[in-house]
């Protein structure tokens, strides 16, 4: 009698602990998902669109990238932390895909610092993170027009402490589907699974 009562009370505690665990886990999952979740069905996505930019191999026309998923990122090579982090994450995401998938993904690193980033410099810089990432840039006006179509902007920020300046730039990576449509924005610092999911979703379109 006493034993079964004790058992019942133990069971009650166990059930409560389990429901609490489920509750906490779902809350955490929800937080994680809402933090990194794609903006969903193109709801709040800017219009994006095509571009022609310069690379060391000549002009890169986004029309020539149809059939591939494009991971578009705006930054600059003098950026010490954020750009290398994003490009390292991009490289790791591409590397984590199968060979056939990798062949259909291109990373495009657009330097918004054409005064310092030559196409030769970009050709040395971008592929360091992954051979599928190409470095491009353009003139100031076309870069401003392009970033604004992607709902972003950039500007030079003088560095009072030294002679070098830094550049304020968008922090997200834009995912363009094989048909040229902007389908996703990957937030800075997103985990690998978010990248893989976004790329595979775009590949399946």
């Amino acid at each position, binding site marked *: 009698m006493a034993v079964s009562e004790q058992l019942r009370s133990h069971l009650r505690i166990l059930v409560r602990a389990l429901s609490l665990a489920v509750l906490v886990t779902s809350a955490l999952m929800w937080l994680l998902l809402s933090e990194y979740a794609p903006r969903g069905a193109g709801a709040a996505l800017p219009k994006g669109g095509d571009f022609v930019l310069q690379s060391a191999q000549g002009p890169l026309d986004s029309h020539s990238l149809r059939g591939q998923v494009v991971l578009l990122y705006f930054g600059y090579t003098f950026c010490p932390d954020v750009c290398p982090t994003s490009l*390292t994450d991009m490289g790791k995401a591409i590397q984590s895909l199968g060979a056939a998938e990798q062949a259909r993904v291109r990373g495009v690193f657009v330097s918004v610092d054409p005064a310092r980033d030559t196409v030769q410099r970009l050709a040395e810089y971008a592929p360091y993170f992954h051979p599928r990432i190409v470095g491009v840039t353009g003139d100031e006006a076309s870069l401003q027009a392009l970033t604004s179509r992607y709902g972003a902007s950039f500007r030079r920020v003088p560095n009072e402490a030294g002679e070098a300046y830094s550049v304020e730039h968008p922090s997200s990576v834009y995912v363009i589907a094989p048909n040229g449509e902007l389908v996703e924005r990957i937030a800075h610092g997103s985990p690998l699974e978010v990248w893989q999911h976004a790329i595979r979703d775009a590949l399946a379109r």
Partner: protein
Amino acid sequence: MRRSFLLTLLFASVAYAASPDVRDAYVPQPPPGQTMAVMFLTIHNPLAQTVSLMSASSELAARVELHTHVHTHGQMKMQALTKVELPAGRDTTFKPGGLHLMLFGLKRALQAGDSVPVSLALSDGSQLRAIAAVRDLRQ
């Protein structure tokens, strides 16, 4: 036996004379052609009062600056700082996307496995020295 006793004594004396120390210092391997690098580390301040990190220097860089990032409305911006407060009894972590040390004018290319010495000047007049390991973050 005697050596371990001496080591214990040494560690005990270090623990007694508690002063801020640096942990987990590293430098992501810069891409080819890069003339600057960034350093991340954690500074533990065991003191009863807040001290500030006033400046940093390294034999391998022409200049080291204290920086942080400001992330607003999807835009990322760097900001130079004149000092970084190290609250009493706490760890202050310099990490990607936040506080970092900027190394300008690298004296040579840095490869994974290299060591980068850094000297940190605190507001109480003391100097902290640390060695950061260069890491290839692509792996």
